[in-house]
């Protein structure tokens, strides 16, 4: 296990290094941040001063090297636009995005898996068909459109929910969260549901497919023949066996929900990292782009690690040290 963790850590560092190099080259290829930041009336001296102030007057390699030196000590540079450390800017927005993503995932799991099971166990019933038809809608309606329709119905027409922003927060272990206050929940409901919809439909389809396959297996028939209760057959024999692909997908999707909540965040003006990233890309605010991507890559790495550990817990045949033992 320990050797496995160390090897993963090494791979992760390499991925982070590669990522930062790509972003550096990418932003360099897109354009010159000074062009966007400096006032168009500024003269040559002012342009040169701005470039020097932001460290953009030096060769790219030199800039990258000093970034690496800073990164080694945990300093990812200061935002060109906001003049605050890029990492703390992102970390100040990350709780909002994480909260939105987790609540969305909880909604997707809590609704998606039970509905998927129902649809899988009773595929030809009216309810099973309705669920599947609904999941097609959830799949195919674009997020921004659903978001706007939600706003039109619940904020504009009914006036029940606020149209944008994050509600009142309380500190839990030093992290501001909003799902514990009534105001926070009111603000959270629409964006979370909006973000959850696609994942929910995905989980419905995945669970249904798994369940349909599993109920035909001999061990399920055998369990039924033994006279086990329906709930035990489904809960233990069916569900546990189809969970591996589901957990994989949930893990991957959690990462993508965090990283790509951008559309939902901009429709609901949710003060998260997605909105920050879009603005930073438009401004070529390189330190923020780099820091954001490094944070997201780190998140993906951690999530994948957790998923691997979960596999070994769900399926005793999976052993984490397996690959190294094969050498």
């Amino acid at each position, binding site marked *: 296990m320990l050797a496995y963790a160390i090897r993963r850590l090494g791979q992760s560092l390499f991925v982070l290094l590669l990522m930062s190099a790509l972003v550096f080259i990418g932003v360099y290829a897109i354009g010159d941040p000074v*062009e966007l930041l400096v006032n168009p009336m500024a*003269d040559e001296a002012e*342009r040169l001063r701005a470039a020097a102030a932001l460290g953009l007057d030096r060769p790219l390699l030199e800039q990258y090297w000093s970034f690496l030196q800073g990164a080694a000590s945990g300093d990812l540079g200061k935002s060109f636009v906001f003049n*605050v450390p890029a990492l703390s800017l992102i970390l100040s927005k990350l709780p909002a995005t994480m909260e939105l993503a987790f609540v969305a995932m909880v909604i997707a799991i809590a609704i998606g898996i039970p509905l998927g099971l129902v649809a899988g166990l009773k595929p030809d019933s009216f309810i099973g068909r309705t669920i599947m038809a609904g999941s097609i809608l959830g799949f195919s309606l674009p997020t921004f459109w659903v978001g706007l329709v939600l706003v039109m119905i619940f904020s504009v027409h009914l006036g029940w929910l606020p149209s944008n922003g994050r509600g009142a927060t309380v500190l839990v272990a030093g992290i501001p969260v909003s799902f514990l206050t009534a105001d926070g929940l009111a603000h959270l409901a629409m964006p979370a549901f909006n973000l959850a919809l696609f994942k929910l439909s995905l989980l419905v389809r995945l669970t249904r497919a798994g369940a349909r396959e599993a109920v035909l297996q001999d061990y399920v028939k055998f369990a039924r023949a033994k006279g086990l209760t329906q709930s035990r057959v489904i809960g233990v024999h069916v569900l546990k066996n189809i969970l591996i692909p589901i957990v994989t997908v949930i893990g991957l999707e959690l990462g993508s929900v965090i990283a790509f909540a951008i559309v939902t965040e901009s429709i609901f*003006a949710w003060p998260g990292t997605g*909105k920050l990233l879009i603005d930073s890309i438009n401004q070529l605010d390189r330190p923020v782009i780099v820091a954001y991507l490094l944070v997201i890559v780190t998140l993906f790495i951690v999530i994948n690690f957790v998923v691997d550990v979960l596999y070994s817990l769900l399926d005793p045949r999976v052993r984490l040290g397996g690959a190294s033992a094969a050498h």
Partner: protein
Amino acid sequence: MPRFLRLALAALAILGLPFAAGTAAAAEREVTIGLQAAITSMDPHYHNLSPNNSMMLHVFEPLIKRDANQKLVPGLAVSWKALDDLTWEFKLRKNVKWHDGTPFTADDVVFTLSRVPNVPKSPSSFATFTKPIVSTKVVDPHTIIFKTAAPHVLLPSDLASVMIVSRLHGEKATTEDYNSGKAAIGTGPYKLVEYVPNQRVVLKANYGYWGGEEPWDKVTFKILTNAAARVAALLSGDVQMIETVPTADIAKLSADKKYSLVDKVSNRVIYVHLNQRTDTPPPFVTGKDGKPLAHNPFKDARVRKALSIAINRQAISDRIMEKRSVPAGQLLPDFFFGTSKKLKPPKYDPEGAKKLLAEAGYPNGFSLTIHGTNNRYINDDKIAQAIAQFYTRIGIDTKVETMPASVYFSRATKGEFGYMLLGWGTESGEQGSSLRSLLATYDPSKGMGVTNRARYSNPQLDALINEAMATIDDKKREGLIQKAAEIAMGDTALIPIHYEVSTWATAKGLRYTPRTDQYTLAMGLKPAK
């Protein structure tokens, strides 16, 4: 993304949901305003950026302010005059207090001038405005004299862009201290309560304000960059005013009695620069058969004129801009300083354009690509498409390529395009400074032609601009600038398309005084009587 939004808005229109009442303001003396762009700092000298400059005016004040038409009016200075070509005397307002109660004096002005060029890591410095001042002399606590090295006619206009900060609070303050509110002690009508980057700015009234009390106890600015979200926030009553109403929603909002819409022509002109850097054809300009042309067609004034009169500006305004644009014949609408009443928008004349092309040796036209942004100006990509259609009619094969501003501007500055669709806002409110930045011969070390991406060069124009910029007398200077503008436009030095019209929507019962500088100020928002 903008394309998605348009689709989404169309979808909403189809749904045709009746808009429920949601106009009740939170509390009577509180108001929330939706802004379209982030405020990047509360340090008034950190980032020379329109949204910031607009926000700063609530908390801080410059010596000279600009009214809704960008005319200079007294701010912290009650009067100013040039004693000679190099010396300016400013009389400061008495009995003005900083938010903490300490009095405002000439020493704060001296401190401000010393701080402006020395803000660390400033991405766009205000030093451009203070640099011409080489020395200051405090005559008494309410009189100050500025000396410049060369005659500097734009000094009052420049100082209208520089917020005065308090020496007491600013001496050791960093940008961070202004953001946190610790140093953000101004003289303005509002005090800073909270600044959250990319999210909101909260202000409360400064009851002791010298200019009289404001109608609001508390003002919250929310950053709502997404246009559809901004409109939805207004419709649901979460905000009481928004800026930059998307074109697609204007008709609907103005028909609804629950909202009122105001608009005003802005200081921003949408124009075309034609790359004239070389005698050989510029990039993306070829013969119709794809073979290179012998010369750069844009160097011929007849071709430039043909390209200008081939555009039906009125049609662009009517069909694409929903009438929220005004066809342009120069760089600023004609009520601004230095504009010429003689310069009308060029008349649409495709036949005349064809004739001019034939005279210039291109009877069968040639081929070009219009390069423009797709996320910077109102409907920028649609304008490019429309122009391409007009050119096709006069026999010029036209392609269109649009891209995000972050990619576009760097490439345009490097001269990688031939036909460039651009925009320019004149912050000074004086046409002379625009002529100097856009059309004077490129010489960045002297501040001439700094944004002349076309590299248009006309010695006669340069001479007039230089003379105007050294003429302190307003009447005489205005005459020179008008003459310069007439020469430039007569030569089609650039192709002006239209002036953008800015729009604001408020909930019923509120009235906003629209501004040419596109600023959204709580001071301009009053309960309607």
